């Protein structure tokens, strides 16, 4: 498969707990992400979605299996891979202005090109004019948009997002989803998003993978055949959208039922 951006092959992750015993979080997850494809991973609470993403991005070494990005196995976060985290207030550096935060993503460019890229990225997320503000002067939604701009500023081939909209209110979430959709539509990057929000996964993705409870495997793969570009109101009004959400939800519930009692024993 030469056109795949990311191949996750039989990924297995175990984490050593405080008492020294090994906790298997991810048992066996495989996934091919094609060029400019949008894939979401959903799963019950505690299914190790964040752990999976950290291993897939090279932030933590897997215990087994491998991750191939751009034909090369990774053992560190590779160039061309950008990550947006859930907690924008811990991900943006509070001592840097928004402009300087975004510039972090473009360190390899010359000063002039960096300035241009920062300006462009801020316009893309609707934050032009905020470059000299500090993160704490912005609302939560604006901070997450700044984090998106920072991820976009280097033109990544792959954007990974860990519950990117979980820390904002529902209306802001809709708005942010459309910001991401617009960025994805107007660019060529592939996206891998981890979320517990089934509606959001269906709304944005080409495919949704459902993880089982821990130790997780891929339980189901649902193809999202909704027309693009999608709109919060028109797309969600269609019967097909409802069917797909219900289908994904059913699989997530299945996975969740199997895990009652062991979930949340370890922080996600």
């Amino acid at each position, binding site marked *: 498969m030469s056109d795949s951006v990311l191949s996750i092959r039989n990924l297995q992750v175990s984490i050593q707990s405080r008492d020294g015993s090994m906790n298997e979080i991810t048992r066996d997850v495989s996934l091919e992400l094609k060029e400019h494809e949008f894939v979401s991973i959903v799963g019950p609470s505690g299914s190790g979605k964040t752990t999976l993403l*950290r291993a897939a*991005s090279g*932030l933590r070494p897997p215990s087994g299996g491998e991750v191939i990005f751009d034909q090369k196995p990774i053992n*560190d*976060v590779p*160039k061309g*891979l*950008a*990550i947006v*985290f859930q*907690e924008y*207030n*811990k*991900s943006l*550096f*509070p*001592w*840097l202005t928004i402009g300087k935060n975004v510039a*972090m*993503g473009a*360190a390899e460019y010359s000063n002039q090109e960096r300035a241009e890229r920062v300006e462009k990225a801020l316009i893309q997320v609707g934050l032009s004019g905020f470059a000299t503000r*500090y993160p*704490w*002067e*912005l*609302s*939560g939604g604006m901070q997450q948009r700044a984090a998106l701009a920072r991820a976009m500023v280097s033109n990544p081939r792959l954007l990974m997002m860990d519950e990117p909209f979980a820390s904002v209110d529902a209306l802001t979430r809709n708005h942010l989803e459309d910001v991401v959709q617009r960025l994805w539509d107007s660019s060529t990057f592939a996206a891998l998003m981890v979320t517990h929000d089934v509606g959001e996964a269906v709304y944005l993705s080409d495919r949704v993978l459902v993880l089982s409870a821990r130790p997780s495997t891929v339980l189901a793969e649902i193809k999202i055949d909704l027309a693009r570009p999608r709109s919060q109101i028109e797309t969600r009004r269609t019967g097909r959208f409802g069917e797909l959400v219900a289908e994904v939800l059913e699989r997530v519930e299945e996975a969740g039922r199997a895990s009652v009692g062991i979930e949340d024993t370890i922080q996600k």
Partner: protein
Amino acid sequence: MIGVKAGPRRGSTIARAGLGWLGLAILATVWQLLGMELHTAVFPTFITSLVAAWHVVTSSTLTTDIIPSLERTAAGFLISAIIGITAGMVIGHYETVRDWTSAVVDFMRSLPTPLLVPIAIVVFGINGRMVVVTIISAAVWPILINTANGTSTIEPTMIDTAKTYGLRGRKLFLKVVLPAASPQIFAGLRVALSVSLAVMVVAEMLGGGSGIGYFIANAQQSFNIDGSYGGVIVLGCLGWIFDTLFLMFERRLLAWQRGTVGGLLDV
């Protein structure tokens, strides 16, 4: 009513500075009255002591004792800061290093400074270098411990973010760990600054050969009681100047932090 403005919660800066001076004035008055009342050579009045302090800073004592003391304090404090911040960041960032060093750090920082002075005198002799080393041996710990603490409590997401943008090794420490831990680092530095001054005086009294501590001890032993009180006043002023300068510096460097602490974080 139109245009009601919320009043400042704490009084204006000028009013607060004024209160500080008023406190000093009361202390001086009580001292003066007590000195006049007791009328004894071992407790001179405030004004007598102030005059003595003036003599200290206008005589040759300025160059023979006060300036050397300032240099030693500054050197001891700055070297402590460099060692404490560097070692603190490494200890705080790497759990393994933390495990290896925690017992050593706890042992070293528990040693009382006066105990170390005789050893330092043996090793370095009666001179300024001994004073500087003694200052470091005491002032490095609050910096190191606060830095390590600040570093180990940095949000993992922040470190992950830094790694995502290719920051490794020295760059990671300078660009992310240092600023992220800087509020705690400054708290440690401020404690270390007053420790530096106190240890400077003790070390000089016990074997500095010169310096303000040496001057005070010497004045006391040669029955120049007014002189030792004058020295104490000079010392107090130095402490106040150091702290004021430090706070000005801190306010500039940590300006970004006031907003985040002000409750605007989750608008």
